[in-house]
């Protein structure tokens, strides 16, 4: 009997494959229940018009009790969006990936949240502590203790 994590991910994957992804989000690769990749772009008017980013999801065996590790792919010529909450190494400072994660959320729900985060961006800039963070950042963004500041997206 597969683990809870695998069964839930199988269900989510089944839903994606049958119902399709929301607009602007496409499944790139989901060969196993350890790591999935999506492309994500902001539809309509935004600062990221025409830009396509790649999202990497990494799951551990406690998913969905534990949140997935989500980041933008910055290898193979891919870049992370220039955004006040996205570091140049692809790590994302978003509360729903940290202390506001809930099992009610899903992979697609995370994609949609991040899409709206990009869409609502007012100014393309890196986080103020980008250089320092990138220098010392761990490989897994879940190991970072982000300080989420209140209302900002």
């Amino acid at each position, binding site marked *: 009997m597969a683990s809870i994590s695998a*069964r839930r991910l199988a*269900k989510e994957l089944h839903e994606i494959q049958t119902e399709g992804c929301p607009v602007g989000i496409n499944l790139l690769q989901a060969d196993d229940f350890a790591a999935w990749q999506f492309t994500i772009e902001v539809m309509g008017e935004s600062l990221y018009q025409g830009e396509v980013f790649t999202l990497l999801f990494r799951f551990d065996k406690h998913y*969905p*009790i534990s949140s997935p590790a989500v980041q933008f792919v910055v290898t193979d010529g891919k870049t992370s969006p220039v955004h006040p909450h996205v570091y140049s190494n692809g790590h994302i400072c978003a509360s729903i990936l940290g202390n506001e994660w*809930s*099992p009610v959320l899903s992979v697609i729900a995370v994609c949609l949240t991040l899409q709206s985060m990009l869409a609502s961006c007012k100014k393309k800039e890196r986080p103020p502590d980008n250089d320092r963070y990138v220098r010392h950042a761990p490989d897994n963004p879940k190991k970072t203790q982000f300080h989420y500041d209140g209302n900002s997206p």
Partner: protein
Amino acid sequence: MSDYVPSIQDLRVKLCYICREEELFDKPEIPPRIWIHPCKCALVAHEACLLKWIQTAQATSAEAGERAMTCPQCRTPYEIESRNPRLLRILSWCSRQLPTLGRVCLWTGFAGFLVSMQAGIYVLLTGYGAHAIQQFFGQEMYDFVLTDDPSNWPIMAYIQLPLIPISLVVSRYAHVSPIMPTIIACFSLMPRGIFALIHHNNYANNIRIESSLWPPSPYAFACVILPTTNAIYRACFARLSYKILGTRDPTEYEDNLRFVFNADDEQRDQEGERPPAPAEEQAVEPNLPAVVPAPPANGDAVGQQLADITIEIKSPSRIGRRIGGALLLPTIANRMGSLLLMLSKHSLYMRKFLGVRPPWQSQVPFPVAWLKTNAQGKPVVPWGLVLRAFWGGVSPWAELDPVWWRNSIGFGIFIVAKDCMKLLYRWLVKREKETRRVKDRPFSEVDVSNLDLIKAGDGQA
């Protein structure tokens, strides 16, 4: 039917919002799992999944735990019932205090460590003090005044004993004879002896003054004999060394302590020579061999004047040796005293001088006292006896084998021998320097044509 409220049992399809497993009402799982609807919205879940989620979130952080206790969709707080007796609440309160407790423990532990370290030092010093007493005053006196059981010690001993090593070391740096502090410390141990006297005097009314006039009591020794002898000896030895070396005894300089550390301590030590004061330099110079030309002597003089400035520099190693030497004093005294005792077996006069007595074997308590009662039964103070007691000592001193006396004599001999050795060494070093000659060689292996030699005709030009 209008007040019909459906419950979780009435759902056709139940979907756990956590594990996303479905269960159809007509296909119940086997074994069954408990479903719950904990909030006001449509989300349902397996109870096990929800509890696991809450538990995990609470373990992550207090904030995440609080968040997990509400519905992620409608934010209705979950209500959880559990067996949470007062005992558990008390215990969890205690558990929350653990970090504070840990900090308290750390600091008390640290403070305790400091205190116990100091206590350890105190015990060490006291132990040394007791050892010094035993060595210097002999086992008999030690057993009488102190004994091996610290619970017998008079209160003063707990103050005086640790002061013994300290005063021994300090005395190496002050113009105090090193034996003084031990004697002085011993004074303080007397209350017990005096107490014993008075105690025994109550029932043994017969007065016996056993104290002989030789050897003198430690009081007389410490207050009169030692300072006098010490002063006379220092003066005589200084004269002697001035006669032999032509300079003042450098050890007189050393007694002034200056905490300046010098790296080239060893080199200066090997030289062993203290430069003479400039005034005496003049006196020494005529004695220098005529062969040695003036310049080296002058150079020496410059060096000596420079050295004069740093004359009292002390080094860590020298300090270490001084401390070690000071602490060895009781042992050295003891060995020297034993040596004297051994030698005294062959000489009656020596035995008399050392006041050697057989081991004290009396079964009755010390009967000696200097408190006398008159005809009316009132005690009178016999001042003559007081003086006599001062010189000859009271009971324990007068009755017991005066180990301390031969130890003091022995240590005095040791000091004299040491000073003489030092003087001899300095004299030998001085003589070696004064008798230095440079050997002259002919040009036997040199090409003579290269030398600018005096030509035969030069004298006539």
